[in-house]
C-alpha cells in the first residue's frame, strides 16, 4: 500500500518535471518559461521527496530530504526572481 502511494507520488512528480521541460522548450517568452520551470522545481521535487520519504520511512533520511527540498525551493525562487528582474531591467532599459 505504502509502496503504491510512494510510487504514485514519484510518478506525479516526474509528470511535473516533464511538463516543466516541455514548457521550457515550447513557451514563447522568458517569463512564461520561468513560470513553467519553477513549477517543476517546487511541486515536482516536492512530490518526489514526499514519495521518497514514504519509501525510506527513516526519520533522519526524511529530514535530509525535506532540507534538500527547502534549499531547492529557496534557491529556485530567488534565482527565478533574479533572472526575471534582470530581463525586465534590460527591457525597460534601466
Amino acid at each position: 500500500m505504502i509502496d503504491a502511494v510512494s510510487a504514485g507520488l514519484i510518478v506525479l512528480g516526474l509528470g511535473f518535471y516533464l511538463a516543466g521541460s516541455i514548457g521550457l522548450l515550447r513557451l514563447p517568452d522568458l517569463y512564461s518559461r520561468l513560470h513553467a520551470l519553477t513549477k517543476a522545481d517546487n511541486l515536482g521535487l516536492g512530490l518526489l521527496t514526499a514519495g521518497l520519504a514514504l519509501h525510506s520511512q527513516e526519520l533522519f533520511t526524511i529530514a535530509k530530504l525535506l532540507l534538500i527540498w527547502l534549499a531547492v525551493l529557496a534557491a529556485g525562487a530567488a534565482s527565478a526572481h533574479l533572472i526575471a528582474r534582470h530581463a525586465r531591467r534590460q527591457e525597460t532599459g534601466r
Partner: protein
Amino acid sequence: MNTPSLLAFDGLLLISIVSLAWAALATRDARRSVILFMAFGLVLALAWGRLLAPDVALAEAAIGAGLSGALLLAAVGGQQGARSGSAQNAGHADPQPAVRWAVTLLCAGVAGILGWALLESFDSSARDTLAQAVAANLASSGVSNPVTAVLLNFRAYDTLLELAVLLTAVLGIFALGQARPGYRFAGPVFDSLARWLVPLLILTAGHLLWVGAHAPGGAFQAGATLAAAAVVLRLAGHSHIGLPAGSVLRLVMVAGVAVFLLVGVTLLALGRPFLGYPPAWAGTLILVIESAAMLSIAATLVLAFLGGRPQALWQATGAAESVPPAATATPAALPEDSSGAATHGVCKEEQSRC
C-alpha cells in the same frame, strides 16, 4: 545491481556528459559556455557517484561545477566590462584552420594515450594490490575513510605539496593587484536567501570536515563549501565576506602548509619519519591538519574569486593610502579611483595574451 534500468541510466548519463561537453565547447557565447560547463560538472558529479566514488563526486560538485563556475562567470563579466571600455577585439579572432587542426590532433593524442593507460590498468593487478594495502593498514591510519587515510596519512606528502601549490596560486593572485570592486546590493530577495544560506553552508563545511574521518568528505570539500558561503555574500553585495584583514589573513593563507610542516618536523624531532604519525595520535593530528587546511583552501578559493588583494589587506600594508576609509564600506563606489584603473589594466593585459 546491474539491472537494465541502471544500465539505461548510465547510458543517458554518458550521453549527457559528452553532449554537454560538446555544447560548452561549441557555443560562441562565453557566458552560455560557462553555464553549460557548470551543468556538465553537475552531471559529471552524478557519474562519479554512480562509479561509487562519492569523495570525488563531492569535490567535483563543489569545486568543479560550483566554484569554478562562479570564477569563470566573474571572469567573463570582468572581460566584457573591459571590452566595452576598449575597442581591441583583434586578439579574439578565430584561430587559423591549421592551428585548429593541430590542437585537435594534440587533444586526440592525449585522449588516446589516456584511454590506452586506462585499458592497461584494467589488466594489471596493481590496482587491487594498492587497494588491499590500504585496507590492510587502515586500522593504524587513525581514520576509517580509506580516501582520507590515503590523502592525509599514507600519501600525506602529496597533500602537503598540493597545499603548497595553492599557496603559490594565492601569491600569483596577489600579483594581479587589488581585488575587483564588489557588486552592488543584490536586492532583498537574494539577500534574505544569503542570510539563510550562509549559516547553513558554514555548518555544512564543519560537518564535511568532521565526517571526513569515517565517510566521504574532508578538507577540500569543506573548504570549497566555506568559500561558497563567502561567494554568496559577495554576490549579495556585502562588503564583509568573512575574510579576516591584514596579517590574520596571511596567517590563514599559510595555515594549511604551516601546520602540516609543523607536525612533520615535530615528528622528525621525536625520531619518527616525516609525517609518520604514531597510530594512537593519528586521528587527532589528521583532524588538526585538515582544520587548518580547510581554512587555507577556503581563503585561497575566495581570493581567487576576488581576483586580487582584498582592500583591507592592501591598506594594512600601507601601499594605498589614497583609498579613503569609507571606500572599504562601499566597494561599489570604487571603480573611479586608481585601484579600479589598475584592475582594468590587468584585464587588458590578459586580453592581449588570449
